[in-house]
């Protein structure tokens, strides 16, 4: 055992998380809940797993070292009122709002009550207590912990006290998206924000949920959003999952989504990353039934020291499935972008139609983009295409726009905007598309 400890580069950091967990448990005034048992199991799992290093192939371009250094504490709901929320609810944005401040649920600002019949959003601990959802919730949690090899998921499961459970009944279509808003405000110490969503759509149902990760304007501070989503899309169902992220200069973000789709279903993930110091997205989908579609649409814009890493995986395990993946981003100053898109087409997955495109603009000498499409195809009757482009703005286009009276800055902004706007056209919900567009425009104006 002593050799294992010696090899664990992050033993001290793991110890800090253990201490934080122990403190949290000691301070917990609530009576023990079955969820706490899962959380303790998850923390035990953290002890057996390692944090990734650059020597790991999947973390070759992204070091988590900087994320692990701060002495994190658990945050509190503070410094936010209903007026602050308005910034993130622009006109036309009509959604069922659930608000987390510094990782803690703000019941006062959330609207659990107004959901349409057949659509359920509740705390995971309440779902576990209910007769109707208890067994589903436990099964999901068991699956998350079973054979889990990602230390960040284990850490998430250990610390996420206000996990949400989203559930649409058979054939229910929920028109209004559920909007889970994470706000970071000023805090004296670095904050660990762990949040888990378990989303389940039963046969023939459809809903959308938005995860917003924002820093309150004018706030500063270090924090680590460790977010985990477990998505189960039933037969002929559709889940839309939007991730809009505009964290501050000292915000660290690790998002992981594990989706599982049944036959004839659709899962669409739309990701917009504009902020954060280090951002790592792990987006994974496994196909369990035929004739289904997976859509990944991503936009990112990194400036200064930002590091934005999109790691995607689509596991085509059955025939007649389709996947569409389009990522576009801009990096400038000393920012760095990473795209690693793995598509597995297993032997039985005949007639697979898989499309992947990653395009980026690298606008300064110090900016960097690493793009790695990774197609592993074991079936012989498939259509798979992938493209990766890394380039600069077309100077003849800049000249053309300037020849009509736009100045150099306006011309470049128009072209950069056009470059990433293509992805926004795939955003199904117009209000989210407009919101994303507004956020992107703000970033251009910075």
């Amino acid at each position, binding site marked *: 055992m002593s050799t294992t400890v010696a090899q664990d580069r992050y033993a001290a950091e793991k110890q800090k998380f253990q201490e934080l967990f122990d403190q949290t448990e000691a301070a917990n005034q609530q009576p023990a809940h079955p969820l706490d048992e899962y959380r303790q199991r998850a923390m035990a799992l953290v002890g057996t797993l390692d944090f990734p290093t650059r020597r790991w192939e999947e973390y070759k371009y992204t070091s988590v070292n900087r994320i692990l250094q701060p002495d994190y504490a658990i945050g509190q709901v503070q410094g936010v009122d209903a007026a602050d929320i308005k910034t993130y609810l622009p006109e036309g944005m009509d959604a069922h709002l659930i608000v987390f401040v510094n990782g803690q649920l703000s019941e006062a600002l959330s609207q659990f009550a107004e959901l349409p019949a057949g659509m359920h959003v509740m705390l995971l601990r309440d779902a576990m207590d209910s007769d109707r959802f208890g067994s589903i919730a436990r099964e999901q949690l068991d699956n998350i912990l079973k054979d889990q090899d990602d230390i960040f998921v284990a850490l998430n499961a250990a610390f996420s006290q206000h996990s949400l459970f989203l559930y649409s009944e058979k054939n229910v279509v929920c028109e209004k998206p559920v909007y889970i808003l994470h706000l970071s405000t000023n805090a004296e110490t670095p904050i660990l924000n762990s949040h888990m969503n378990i989303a389940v759509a039963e046969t023939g149902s459809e809903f959308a949920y938005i995860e917003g990760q924002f820093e309150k304007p004018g706030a500063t501070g270090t924090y680590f959003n460790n977010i985990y989503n477990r998505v189960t899309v039933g037969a002929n169902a559709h889940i839309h999952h939007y991730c809009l992220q505009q964290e501050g200069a000292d915000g660290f973000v690790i998002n992981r989504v594990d989706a599982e789709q049944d036959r004839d279903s659709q899962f669409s993930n739309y990701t917009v990353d504009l902020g954060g110091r280090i951002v790592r997205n792990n987006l994974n989908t496994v196909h369990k039934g035929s004739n289904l579609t997976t859509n990944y649409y991503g936009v990112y814009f990194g400036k200064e020291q930002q590091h934005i890493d999109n790691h995607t995986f689509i596991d085509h395990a059955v025939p007649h499935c389709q996947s569409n993946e389009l990522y576009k981003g801009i990096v400038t100053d000393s920012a760095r972008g990473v795209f690693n898109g793995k598509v597995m087409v297993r032997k039985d997955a005949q007639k697979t139609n898989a499309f992947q495109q990653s395009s980026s603009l690298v606008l300064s000498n110090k900016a960097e983009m690493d793009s790695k499409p990774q197609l592993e195809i074991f079936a012989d009757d498939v259509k798979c295409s992938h493209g990766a482009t890394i380039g600069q703005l077309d100077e003849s286009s800049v000249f*053309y*726009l300037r020849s*009509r*009276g*736009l100045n150099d800055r306006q011309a470049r902004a128009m072209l950069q905007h*056009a470059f990433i706007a293509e992805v926004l056209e795939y955003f199904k919900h117009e209000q989210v598309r407009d919101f994303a567009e507004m956020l992107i425009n703000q970033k251009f104006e910075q």
Partner: protein
Amino acid sequence: MLTVKDLKVAVEDKTILNGINLEVKPGEVHAIMGPNGSGKSTFANVIAGREDYEVESGSVLYKGEDLLEMEVDERALAGIFMAFQYPVEIPGVSTSNFLKSIVNANREARGLEEMNAMQMLKYIREKIELVGMDEKFLRRSLNEGFSGGEKKRSEMLQMALLEPSLAILDETDSGLDIDALRIVSEAVNKLRTQDRSFIIVTHYQRLLNYIEPDFVHVLYKGRIVKSGDKSLALELEDKGYDWIKEEVDAVAV
């Protein structure tokens, strides 16, 4: 309007324009003709402000100011419009947004208020009719997938919207069928005013059947070797460029 004196321009150390002299007064239409490689397009691009050219000597005054010191967008805002031979396709930039941006940028430069959405729509519709374009193009990406004729029409639409003082048409007629050619020349004729000047660069005389120039200049080996009125264009149509080349080359020897 425009005074060009002894303009010498090189591209990658090769002299393309070898002493151009030209005076364009308000309201005049000048046609610049010449064989391939004579420097016609280079001249148009230097006036528009393309930076790949090195001005070796000479001067260009536009409304009394040193044009060569102005950036390309400054020239545009000062009222110079260039209709390009090959307009670039710009995917993702919607034609309508682009037109709104350029109209308002030019209005701002002229001290006019920005147009609101309604005024803009009315203004664009009016000009779209003038150039005989289909409104559906407004919803498409700028020039993307447009045919040759549609691209030229889009250039004419921009010209009509920006109401320049000096418009340069760089081989706008090349490759157009007769219908498209008519539309381009009608647009120019409708926009002709006492104050607005045109420089029409063309390889073929055909366009000048529709747009009557005040002056015709023949460019050869980077110099204007012959100037005249519209009858010179007809003569060129009859005899081609060879007689001019011979004349010039004989003198040079």
